[in-house]
């Protein structure tokens, strides 16, 4: 019964952002494999653990328009039988050595992650399982049919939930005619064939589309060998498969209503806003700490939650992506209160856009983000998550060390200007689900 879930959105949004020189146990090393895959590595022997993550330009944004859901289905089927092992043997072998493997697709990337003990025998078995999943997946017909039916059933269930309906309506509204706004439907899943999955894998799981992050109890030589093993047998690159996404068109302010019997209205306000390679990204992230990212101490929490008791959870975030990812404000409030809560949100946002943070607010943000940097990297798993994002988006290896000083260098004016450029009231889309 945690008091708020806002911290859950914060580390995800800032995942790529946050490390600091004096707290980084070892420097980030980087190289490119002979197959053309970018590798980021942190060597740390404090625990006998190795974390491996490989990501591909193979997220849902690369779904063919008529096959929404295929990226996700492909990622989830990789380890359901691969190499010499059927799906049961893969899962049993992982359990036998106490290794953990997971996979999934986001909007831009699809990833497979492995955590294993570092002793040579277990590590070798775990890596062999991962290599098989990446390079020799069975995509067995019966397994595909079964999981397809499960996915359809799971999606139909999700489509009864107000938060899911709200999020889908929001993405469709801010990304019309763009891959980020295309929705997986029970119909698109149901008409998918096994061959569609195999084709998607062949086209998108090549070394040229991949990036690797390694953290833990490995030497540099072991890390290099491991990266080669992961990438040397991947499907050949197909030059005609797109590696970029179109730029989203600007939105026009509007309100979308979704009916639902829930007791709470789910409100979302936002627009396509910032790409991962945008130089103003840090100004936006730091400014957003003051607006609605800083959990209990944000302006939105103060006005909506503390002063008025309108919501348990109210937040804002930037989600930078390959192309302009969303800026979003979200909250849930009892349905009769939706109008009042939205008014407060719009007032807080309007004031912030006009004035930007005060010097004191900026200092508070800098003190928290730069001062607390060590907290974002104090475990191997946090390091691995950060490195995974850095490697996928090709951020410089000193991104981590430099981040605190770049945060400290920001001025209130720089943040105000960045916000005015990336958040425009005339482009904000509002989604009201289950609101009276």
């Amino acid at each position: 019964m945690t008091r708020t879930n806002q911290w859950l959105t914060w580390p995800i949004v800032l995942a790529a952002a946050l490390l600091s020189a004096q707290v980084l146990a070892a420097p980030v090393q980087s190289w490119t494999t002979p197959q053309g895959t970018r590798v980021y590595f942190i060597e740390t022997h404090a625990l006998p653990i190795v974390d491996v993550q490989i990501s591909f330009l193979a997220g849902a944004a690369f779904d063919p328009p008529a096959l929404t859901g295929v990226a996700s289905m492909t990622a989830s089927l990789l380890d359901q039988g691969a190499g010499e092992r059927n799906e049961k043997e893969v899962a049993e072998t992982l359990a036998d050595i106490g290794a953990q493997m997971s996979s999934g697709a986001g909007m831009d990337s699809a990833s497979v992650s492995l955590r294993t003990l570092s002793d040579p025998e277990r590590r070798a078995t775990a890596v062999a399982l991962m290599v098989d999943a990446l390079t020799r997946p069975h995509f067995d017909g019966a397994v595909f049919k079964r999981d397809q039916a499960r996915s359809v059933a799971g999606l139909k269930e999700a489509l009864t939930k107000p938060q899911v309906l709200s999020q889908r309506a929001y993405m469709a509204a801010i990304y019309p005619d763009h891959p980020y706004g295309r929705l997986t439907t029970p119909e698109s899943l149901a008409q998918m064939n096994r061959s569609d999955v195999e084709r998607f894998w062949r086209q998108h799981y090549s070394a040229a589309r991949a990036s690797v992050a390694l953290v833990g109890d490995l030497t540099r030589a072991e890390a290099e060998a491991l990266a080669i093993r992961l990438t040397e047998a991947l499907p050949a690159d197909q030059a005609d498969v797109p590696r970029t996404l179109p730029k989203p068109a600007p939105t026009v302010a509007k309100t979308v209503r979704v009916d639902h019997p829930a007791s709470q209205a789910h409100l979302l306000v936002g627009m396509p806003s910032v790409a991962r390679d945008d130089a103003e990204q840090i100004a936006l992230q730091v400014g957003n700490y003051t607006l609605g990212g800083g959990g209990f101490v944000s302006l939105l929490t103060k006005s909506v939650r503390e002063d008025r008791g309108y919501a348990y959870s109210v937040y804002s975030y930037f989600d930078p992506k390959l192309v302009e990812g969303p800026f979003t404000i979200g909250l849930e409030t009892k349905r009769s209160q939706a109008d009042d809560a939205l008014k407060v949100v719009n007032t807080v946002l309007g004031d912030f856009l006009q004035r930007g943070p005060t010097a004191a607010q900026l200092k508070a943000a800098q003190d928290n983000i730069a001062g607390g940097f060590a907290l974002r990297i104090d475990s191997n798993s946090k390091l691995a998550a950060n490195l995974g994002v850095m490697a996928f988006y090709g951020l410089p290896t000193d991104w981590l060390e430099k981040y605190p000083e770049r945060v400290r260098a920001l001025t209130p004016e720089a943040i105000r200007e960045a916000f005015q450029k990336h958040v425009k009231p005339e482009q904000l889309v509002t989604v009201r689900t289950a609101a009276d």
Partner: protein
Amino acid sequence: MRLRIALGLLSLLSLLLTPPLAVAAPVMDNTFETTLANGMRVVVREDHRAPTAVQMVWYRVGSIDEHDGVTGVAHVTEHMMFKGTPRVGPGEFNRRVASVGGRDNAFTSTDYTAYFQQVPASQLKAVMVLEADRMRHLTLEPIGYSKEIQVIMEERRMRTDDQSSARVHEAMNAVAWQAHPYRRPVIGWMSDLEQMTVADVRDWYRRWYVPNNATLVVVGDVNHQQVFGWAKQTYGAIPARALPARKQYEEPVQTGQRQLEVKAPADLPLLVMGWKAPRLNDPRKDMDPYALEMLAQILDGHDAARLPTALVREQQVAVSIDTSYDSTNRGPSMFMVQASPRPGHTVEQLEQSIRGALAEVANKGVTDQELARARSQLRASEVYKKDSVMGQAMEIGMLETLGYGWQSSPLMLEKLNQVTAADVQRVAQSYFKDDQLTIARLVPQPLDAAALAARAKRAEAIQAGGRH
């Protein structure tokens, strides 16, 4: 690919523990304890991998200690702990933690209420001063309360009222437990929240928020002697006070199967089966809770475990299945299996399949290979959990607050490893009796119909001048 989160005792244990595998320094050597003169327990674990630290203060008070009419007051008090003292104004606690680069939060369960701050290690003392201040001097001011109780009602709407599966579990607890306080939801019934006053919170705070009901846990890049010294200066200055007598609730033996249905917006039905099961009482002498933990792992500890293999892959009667058993509580436990049927199959078929899988264990037992696999997962996860400072603090706090003591964890691990196939078979024969079973079903309401019904109900309420 599903990553099962190991359940109950397994997850608890896997958080730390002396490794049979090679790890630099045995964790137990880095853990130190003391008790302040006022009775407050202090446990410090030094983990110098990164310059961070976590402080947790655990109070042995949760919804289990509440009474009818004021359900939810433990959780409401947790919220009000952020609303200020004479020295630290409303909202100032969060601001001060944030200003030193930290994060803070709190949580309430049936059995305890806990507060934590994750900070750069250099800032530990500052947050100890803050946490000690609100142990004694909470203002509990009525205007702040009147807003916060609204926030909590929104929390209830979000977590329970609008979540079909949460409503099933809330209703199931209310049916499975009759005398025991576990029948009441941690967040409280809505009508109790509506009628609660700040006086109820003050009463709760005065009764339970005393050093002799609390455990301080610090894990991170710290020196334990220094932390002991700070603890003495801060928490040590707060006088002890006699705690109210705690009632012992004995749930009468259940003598017949119970069933319930919940109708809520959904597409898939949900079946939840829960059998009454023992809590771990004496970590040294008990055997059954350990055997049940291993059984849960063998049933559902990985993708190829018994239940997902039988129900999801082979018979294909379920789209998902989940098993849970947590033996470490202040009160009694349930062994729960929940699943959603694959379209085209009924919950009755699903129920029969689950019963079949359990009967197979009871009749034929489990293999040594299955047990070896569960032990291997257990050993690995105990290494993995050392990666998280917060996870280590959670385990220490839980074991202390639930009354087992943090040192009992190696013993628990040893006992889990001693479980034999015969033990697992015996508990499968003993505990899965219909008379001890409660079955809850979610009856899905199509969204269109549900929307219409809700609209009609609201229209009625408006006509009748109802409050909602």
